[in-house]
């Protein structure tokens, strides 16, 4: 029994050509279907009228498969078609049998099983962000671009801007100094994330497998901000924020060492692409080789 592999209709160009040749005259004789059979496959080329009364060349490719079956099945194969299929030719009728599109069985890994959790985290994060976003115009809890008073306040503000410009850097500088300069020396063993025992050189090597790299941070990001941002995903052993030696301003990238790799993976999944301080954060594995 022939098995339908696919039934290919002629291309649009072919159809047009066909119509031109025959002049759209439906009374012309249809050529007999051409059947090519080479053992493993069969190709039938025929010309039929489609719904719009246009002649269409239909090329059907069939793959011939041979199956060894039980006698009773072979017997049933010889049954004649009946009912509405009575006049169907041997082989599947394209009107009732269609080769559907390829579908993949989607295997669920344990990872995608609870997407609700990461959704929760994202929501939590957005909630925690609420206070951080501040409109430059009305000082309310939204982005400046979305400010409802934008049209009214924007021109006002730009006129004031010139006056403020001189004051701003002066005000910002002392604040940065206060927080940026490291305090008293703390031995490594006493620092946050360090174990209380002394560490040998070897064990001091950090576990790079749970480290994420954050880039595109804004200049005035502090370690504390990163702590707030990344802590919800799990315990952090170390935060390294690259800073300029003299100005103490952030260089725009940081490394976060998580204690567990799963937490790091979740942090990447959620924070990557997150808007923070007018920039879109880029979060990825620190060591892409692992």
């Amino acid at each position, binding site marked *: 029994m022939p098995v339908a592999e696919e039934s290919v209709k002629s291309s649009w160009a072919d159809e047009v050509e066909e119509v031109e040749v025959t002049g759209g005259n439906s009374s012309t004789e249809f050529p007999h279907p051409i059947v090519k059979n080479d053992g493993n496959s069969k190709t039938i080329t025929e010309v039929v009228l489609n719904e719009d009364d246009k002649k269409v060349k239909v090329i059907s490719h069939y793959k011939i498969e041979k199956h060894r079956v039980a006698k009773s099945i072979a017997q*049933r194969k010889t049954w004649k078609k009946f009912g509405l299929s009575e006049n169907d030719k041997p082989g599947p009728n394209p009107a*009732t049998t269609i080769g559907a599109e390829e579908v993949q069985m989607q295997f*669920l890994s344990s990872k995608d099983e609870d997407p609700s959790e990461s959704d929760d985290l994202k929501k939590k994060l957005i909630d925690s962000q609420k206070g951080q976003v501040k409109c430059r115009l009305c000082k309310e809890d939204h982005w400046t671009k979305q400010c409802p008073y934008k049209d009214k306040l924007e021109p006002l503000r730009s006129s004031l801007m010139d006056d403020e410009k001189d004051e701003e850097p002066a005000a910002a500088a002392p604040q940065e100094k206060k927080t940026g300069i490291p305090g008293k020396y703390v031995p490594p063993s006493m620092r946050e994330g360090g174990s209380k025992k002394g560490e040998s050189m070897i064990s001091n090597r950090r576990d790079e497998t749970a480290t994420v790299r954050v880039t595109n941070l804004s200049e005035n990001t502090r370690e504390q901000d990163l702590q707030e941002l990344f802590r919800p995903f799990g315990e952090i052993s170390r935060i390294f924020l690259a800073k300029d030696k003299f100005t103490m301003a952030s260089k725009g990238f940081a490394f976060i060492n998580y204690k567990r790799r799963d937490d790091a993976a979740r942090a990447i999944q959620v924070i990557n692409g997150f808007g923070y301080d007018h920039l879109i954060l880029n979060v990825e594995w620190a060591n892409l080789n692992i």
Partner: protein
Amino acid sequence: MKPILLQGHERSITQIKFNREGDLLFSSSKDPIPNVWWSINGERLGTFDGHTGAIWAIDVKWDTTVFASGSADQSLRLWDCETGKTISKLQMKASVRGISFSYSGNLIAYTTDKMMGQQSELNIIDVREPNNVDDTAIMKAQVTPTNQKALSVLWGPLDETVVTGHEDGAIIKWDIRTSKKTDVAIEHTKQINDMQLGHDGTMFITASKDSTARLWDLSTLEPLKIFKTDRPVNSAAISPLIDKHPYVVLGGGQEAMEVTTTAARVGKFDARFFHAVFEEEFARVKGHFGPINSLAFHPNGKGYASGGEDGFVRVHVFDDAYNQFRFDY
């Protein structure tokens, strides 16, 4: 997988069934004409013309000689599988909701709807002579009003018992010699939409509107496993290769009347594969754009077919990904 799409029905599919050897696939829908297809290439062998109402249930005898259909036109017909001609027609007083050939093929159990003053009934008739069927039931049991109406029906081992699934979620086992209830199991909380036997006839699976499917021991009516989803389950089937692939497949999705209010992605019309032992879903197959109403494993276990509210039957042959899949536990 490259499924074959069978487009022979004008309305939503109600039941699909393979014959014992799996070379033929029978399908019925809410239009009055059941179809039969060659499962290997999706070629339509024929249609069974005669009914005047929706077909609720179908079954085929083990030797693929007689095909039975129960319809909302309040009749039950027996057909010759080879010619598609009606062998006999039994007129009822209510719609036939469930129909099942016994293992021997000598008896048919069917359930009728509760409608127009008629009570829901469970009847068993002798069909050893399909041309000359005596429509006086050899067993008759009134289901309502003591229980809710019976929708689906299955045979127990040795043709001694039948099991019915009810509108309120109850599963009842009947002894056909005494016409009495022997067991009642109430685990499901809503309507039983489908019941299917496992390949060896020791277990069966029920699909319920309460969003779960359950696996049962047929002889004791003991609930063995529960498979939970978040949408009503319309059909469930047990893999015939239960030793190698101990899986069940569930089909369902949102209720048909609510479908137009949501996107297909939200409706969850996928066929869902669960591990039968661990009760955990491990794979899904998309395809239908309405809820799946009926599912059937190919008797060789290497494929399955699904019929949906969208009126299509999709015949799938599993690919290597399924055969090589090992459940991680």
